[in-house]
């Protein structure tokens, strides 16, 4: 499916593909040789004959698109409405708000944009993300209209090439986008940044994150098990949106670090492959907390070890205060974590060392004896302050080629209209 999606994204839907039976990576060389022998005729056919082994034709695609109805009629009874929408495959499995024309119109109006304006196309199926389609998904997710500019900016941020959305949408990894909100809109929209920030209970966090998932599935076409090939998935794929606790952040907030003004409202999207709790209620010094954090980061098995991608520390205010009181800057913390969050070669299997040596060869050069670091550069460790009281931080590894993407929230989210929409 990844090959098909990649070919279609490049406009080559009829590119000949040869399906080699899974698994490939874990089998013996003898079995691999047999696989090559059984595939070579198909490969020769794909190289020398036209119209071989394409998944489906352009004509079939056009036919299916022409059948898309702009709207449908479903029973008005709430239970039956949900049943009808779920049967169409439009939900995440949880009840949704029906995207009636009036509700969608109200959402569109909150953006100041026209409903038919095209924001871009979403992989893997190159779904046309018009403002109306995005709004319909935001309604279904339970968003207030005031949240819509935040949803739009989150979507645009994910469309930046550096975010690798095609990969996120189709991979066997459990990676999912995390939205981090900064600026005045946190108060205007009541986005939680304090106690239980990664959890439930706030309408803005819950529904904005959910809207992002519904958009990716319904418009992008990343249907689980079909194009979304995640082996396990993770609960954060339902929804994952937080805000930074700027009030208790002793350093500059994330969006300022990313080049915006403090008075701006902004959303930063990053890749999340799980939340690893970092509990340290005993350490009295930053060195002690750093030791705990580095140990948590140095847990094996994440994509970071193979790809050296970015990662994120969600630092609780109490840990941040300890660092700040001792004069630590974010750069100091990053550097120390970069040096400490390493795994020695002995912690990897021989096969993994061979794989990592291909992708991160610099850590295998002569003179590199400190093991393999969680990232290739200290600046690839992002630090966000969030959460309530308690000495509990978290570590979030990212995924291949996903670079944090930050955009201002373009319109309305901090306006008086939005302020009146507290939930």
């Amino acid at each position, binding site marked *: 499916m990844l090959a098909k999606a990649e070919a279609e994204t490049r406009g080559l839907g009829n590119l000949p593909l040869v399906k080699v039976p899974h698994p490939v990576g874990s089998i013996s060389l003898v079995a691999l040789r047999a696989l*090559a022998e059984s595939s070579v005729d198909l490969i020769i056919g794909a*190289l020398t004959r036209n119209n071989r082994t394409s998944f489906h034709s*352009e004509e079939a695609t056009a036919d299916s698109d022409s059948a898309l109805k*702009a709207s449908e*009629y479903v029973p008005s009874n709430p239970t039956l409405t949900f049943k009808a929408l779920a049967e169409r495959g439009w939900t995440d499995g949880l009840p949704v708000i*029906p*995207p009636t024309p009036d509700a969608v119109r109200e959402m569109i109006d909150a953006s100041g944009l026209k409903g038919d304006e095209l924001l871009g196309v979403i992989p893997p199926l190159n779904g046309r993300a018009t403002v109306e389609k995005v709004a319909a998904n935001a309604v279904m997710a339970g968003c207030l209209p005031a949240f819509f500019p935040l949803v739009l900016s989150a979507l645009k941020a994910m469309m930046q090439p550096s975010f690798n959305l095609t990969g996120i949408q189709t991979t066997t990894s459990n990676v999912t986008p995390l939205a981090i909100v900064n600026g005045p809109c946190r108060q205007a929209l009541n986005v939680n940044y304090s106690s239980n920030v990664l959890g439930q209970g706030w309408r803005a966090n819950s529904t904005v994150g959910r809207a992002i998932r519904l958009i990716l599935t319904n418009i992008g076409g990343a249907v689980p098990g079909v194009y979304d090939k995640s082996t396990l998935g993770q609960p954060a794929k339902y929804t994952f949106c937080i805000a930074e606790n700027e009030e208790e952040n002793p350093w500059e907030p994330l969006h300022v670090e990313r080049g915006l003004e403090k008075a701006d409202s902004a959303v930063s999207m990053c890749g999340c492959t799980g939340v690893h709790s970092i509990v340290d209620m005993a350490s009295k010094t930053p060195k002690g907390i750093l030791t705990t954090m580095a140990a948590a980061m140095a847990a094996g098995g994440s994509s970071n070890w193979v790809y050296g991608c970015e990662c994120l520390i969600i630092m609780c205010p109490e840990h941040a205060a300890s660092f700040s009181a001792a004069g630590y800057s974010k750069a100091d913390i990053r550097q120390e974590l970069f040096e400490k969050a390493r795994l020695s070669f002995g912690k990897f299997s021989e096969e993994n060392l061979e794989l990592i040596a291909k992708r991160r060869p610099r850590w295998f050069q002569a003179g590199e004896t400190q093991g393999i670091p969680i990232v290739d550069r200290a600046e690839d460790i992002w630090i966000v302050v969030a959460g309530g009281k308690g000495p509990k931080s978290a570590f979030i590894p990212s995924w291949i080629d996903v670079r944090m993407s930050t955009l201002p929230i373009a319109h309305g989210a901090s306006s008086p209209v939005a302020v009146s929409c507290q939930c």
Partner: protein
Amino acid sequence: MQTDLIEVINPTADRELKIGKIASRNHGLEAKRIGLLDNSKPNADKFLEYVGQLLKQRYPTIEILPRRKMTRTEADCLQELIGSCDLVVSAFAD
């Protein structure tokens, strides 16, 4: 009854159809330069190496050009392949 129904906007979307043209495959392999693009996943390089050996056995005049990408196929990688190869076999996925 109509009164029991509500209208809902379809949240799924039309597809932006990019229609590219793939190169003609109506040719033999003799004397062709064949790139083998390894995606750095486990065994991809060895699988393609075997494929290259098998192709070479059948078509001794071909030239095999092993290549490797780390993650996505970036533009410079594509340009290099276009410049150096007549045909490319690319490994995908896990």
